[in-house]
Each structure stands twice: as C-alpha cells, then as structure tokens.
C-alpha cells in the first residue's frame, strides 16, 4: 500500500466534507437574500418537536405560469423564476424545466417537481427548504395557518438556506 496515496485519498475526503460546510457559511457573504411568503402546509400541527414544517406560496405553480406542455416526472429538476414586488417579497413569475435568464430584481430558484393537481391546475414543486429547526419546546408559538415571511439566502452554486423566520 502506498502510504502517500492513501493519506491523499483520506485528505480529499476530509477536504470535501469541510468544503461542504464552508460553502454553507460563505453563503452569508456572497449569497443573494430572498424573502418568501409561507403557505399553510398539510399536517395540521406543523410543529415536530425541534423543527417547523414550512410550505411556500411559490411551491404551488398555477397552470398559466407553467411554461411547459404536460408535467415532468416526480423528482425531476425544475426552475422557478422569482421577482421582488414593492415590499421586497419575491413572487413567482414562471416555472419550467429549462433554466431561465434572470434580470435585475429576479432570481432563479431550482426546485424538484412533485405532482400535478389536475383539477385545480396546480403544479406542486419542492424547493427543499421545508424544515426550519427551532429551539426545543418553543414551537407552540408557531400557529397553524399563519402567514409568515421567510428570508432565505441563495448562493451562486445553487445552495440555499433559511436565515430568518418572522
């Protein structure tokens, strides 16, 4: 066994994990801040002990904003084009399987396709930020159905996280 190669391989693994973490903290500096409105989620009690289950308005794409014919497969990557309104809250412009070009005041958010509600003509997608971890036993203050604002930060390398929940 070549010792040097072995330790090279081990270091590469450590480095990779460290980079994953470092990217998360670097987001605060280089990422773009986006404020989103929550939508009521399915479970009656969104509070799960140490985290809150969140849904977003932009995760329900009405048929007319869907740029595509038909629905992609579940789990497929889709893109959402968002634009800030006067209050700085981002709202959905359009969505589809192709990446959009964004102008000033717009951001493109990758998401995963979930399912289509054909009756209501709504495409459900998942932006992957549906859990917000809170300190234990403070969750009772989160009431069901209440509309909240979530600030997320979006990194150029497609990573994202929740910064605050108001």
């Amino acid at each position, binding site marked *: *066994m070549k010792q040097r190669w*072995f*330790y090279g391989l081990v270091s590469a693994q*450590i480095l990779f*994990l460290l980079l*994953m973490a470092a990217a998360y903290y670097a987001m605060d500096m280089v990422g773009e801040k986006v404020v989103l409105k929550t939508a009521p989620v399915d479970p009656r009690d969104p509070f799960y002990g140490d985290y809150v289950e969140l849904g977003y308005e932009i995760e329900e794409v009405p048929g007319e904003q869907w740029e595509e014919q038909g629905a992609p497969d*579940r*789990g497929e990557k889709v893109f959402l084009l968002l634009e800030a309104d006067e209050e700085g809250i981002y709202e959905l412009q359009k969505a589809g399987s192709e990446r959009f070009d964004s102008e000033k005041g717009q951001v493109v958010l990758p998401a995963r396709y979930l399912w289509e509600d054909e009756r209501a003509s709504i495409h459900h997608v998942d932006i992957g*930020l549906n859990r917000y971890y809170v300190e234990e036993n403070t969750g009772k203050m989160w009431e069901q159905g209440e509309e909240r604002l979530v600030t997320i930060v979006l990194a150029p390398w497609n990573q994202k*996280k929740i910064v605050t929940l108001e």
Partner: protein
Amino acid sequence: MKRNQLLKESEWWVEEAIITEAQREKLLEHYPEKQYKPVLLTFAALFIGLGFLTFTASNWSYLADWGRMAVLLLSMSAFYVAGERVYKKKSARVGSSLILTALLIFGAAIFLVGQMYHYTAFSASPFLLWSMAATGLYVVMREGLFYYAAAVIITVGQIYSGLVFQDFYLWLGLLLLGGLGWVVYETRSLAFAGVFAVSYYIQALVLVFSGGYPYYWLIIGSMALYIADDLITQKGQTRIWKTSAVVFMFAVFFLQIFFLGDGYAETLTESSLYFFLIWAVLFVLAVVRSALSTTNYYWIDLLLFIPVFRFPSGDLFSLIVLFIYAVLWLVSGYQQEVRRWVNKGTAAFLLTTLAAYFQLAWDFMDRSVFFFVGGLLLFVLSYGLEKKRRSFRREGEEQ
C-alpha cells in the same frame, strides 16, 4: 494435501530415502502455514465503531453543527489512521475492516452534512462520491474488500436513483464499466467478475425501466457482456460473464412466454431500427466467436438472443425457442457425454415445461385439476429424465 499431513508423511519419505531433507523443505514451502485469522478482533473493531456511531446518532440532536462536523471528521480520520497502522504492522484483516468502517463513516457524513447544511440533491451524486472513495481505496490498497464495497455502493446508488429520481445516473454506470470493469480485466478475478455482472444487470434494469425504453434493450446489454467475456477469461476458468448472460436471457425468455401476448408485441416493434442495427453487429460477433471456439456447441446459447418480440405470437415463439434450446443441450450432452450440458438441458427443459403448462392450461382448467395434473406431469418428466441421466452415467463409468 494439508500441511500437517504432509509434515508427517514427508518425515517418513525422508527416512525411506525417497526424497532428501532439502527436497522435503522445498515441498513444504508450497504448503504455507495457514495464517491465523483474527476474526474476533475484526468484530471487536466493528463493534466499537458501531457503538460509537449509535452513541453519536442518539445524541445527535443535542450537538451543534460544528460539534457534529467535529465528531464526523475526527471519527473518520481516527478510523482511517488506525486502520492504516494496523494494516501495515499487525493484521491486514483488522486493518481493512477499520478502514471499511471509516469509509462507511464517510458515506454517512456526506448525507448528514448535506442534511445539516440544507443541500438538495437532484441525482445520486452523493453515492457517486462515496463509491469513488471506495474505488480509490481499492486502487491504493488492492484489497478485495474495497472492490466489493465499491460495487455495493454503486449498485445501491443506482437503485436509489431509479426509485427516487426515476432516472439512470450515468456516472455511476460509467464508474462500474470503466472503474470496476478495468479491475476485473486486470485481475481476472472470478469473484470480481461475478459481482460486476450482478451490478451490471441491476443497472441495466434501472436504465431500461427508468428511461422508459422497451425491454428488448436488455438483450443488447446481456449480449455485450456475453461477448466481453472473452476479454476477461483465462483458459480453463469458468466463463462467468457468458454464463450470467445466458441465465439472464433465459429469465427474459421465461417472462416473454407470459407477456408477449397479442397486441403487446406490435407496440414494441415501433422505432426498433437502432436496436436491430446494434443487435445485428453483436450477433455476428457472437456467431464468429462461437465458430472460432474449439467446442462446436456454444452456438446453442445464441438461440437465447433471438429477438422473438419481432414475430407475431412471440409468446409461443419464445416457448418453442426455449424447448429447442433445452433439447439441443440434452442431445449434445448425451452425444458428447458432457454431464454439465445434460444437467443444463434438464434444468432448462423442466423450467420450460413448467412455463408452458402455466401458460397453456391455467386459463381453462380447474385450479385443483391444474395443480394435480401439473404435479403428475413433472413427476413423469423428472422420472424419465433422471432414468436417462442415470443410464448415461453408468455408461460413462463402464467405459
């Protein structure tokens, strides 16, 4: 002969002046003492590792992010360093199991760190990184254990990709072909080739079904492996890729008997031009190969690569091909007196009869009559075949 036995016997050989003492020592060198394998130590290492991991897992939610990071990184490095030391100085076995534990921690860490820092994966890429680490360990250490680890991670990753994303993850497929395939080519290890074949077929199934391709592309997949077998086999070795391709295609044929009914076959033949082009090239290669072979009987296996779905009533056609296949092996087995072929033919014949019986009689027979007659039929068949086989064996022994 075992070393202990040889040790005693050879003493006597020297006394009888059959061999000299020097010759005896030389002989004994060929039977090295079996290495003491510290199985218990391996388990001890694994248990400590597992205990540590479960302890962390149960206290995971109390830890801050940086604490979790520290736990993962420290435990992974500790297992790697300890593994490397032990591998080199004490025991290769314990060392590699420690390193395997570290590899498992790395895999868990990719997912845990991803979850901690809200990464969303849109493909099986975590598995790709993990299996690359495993393949790298094999390349550096040349320990079979890591080859198997890599194969398992690649296969599980591909299944995950198929189930969660309904997608074939190309890079995992390439890592199997280019990475592990290369290892099989280089080492010519039978066990490696077998594991490769299992992963290959699972991935082929994921590729065909998640991509929504017609099932007949599986024929191309198994033909490719059938032909590639020549690259890796040495003389006198079991032809494991060939065998696996034949078994796989037999299973495909078996299923075709049931689902290539009316109407389905027609929908399949649309846009099958590319299939037939590739199929023709591979089939010619396979025919040339079997013509070059010293035994003139391997062309029988090629029957299983016939694209029966192209013909009307493909279900019946599959059944006929399978019967011909079984009978041909039986007949040539008896003629050439190769017991392996007779066994192969017998098994194929019984399975085909079973399928035929299910296909033809299930619909219009009363269930109890169905099983009753089927049992009788199998009984008579196996009696006849066994009788023939025994008389054949007796003849072989008499000669």
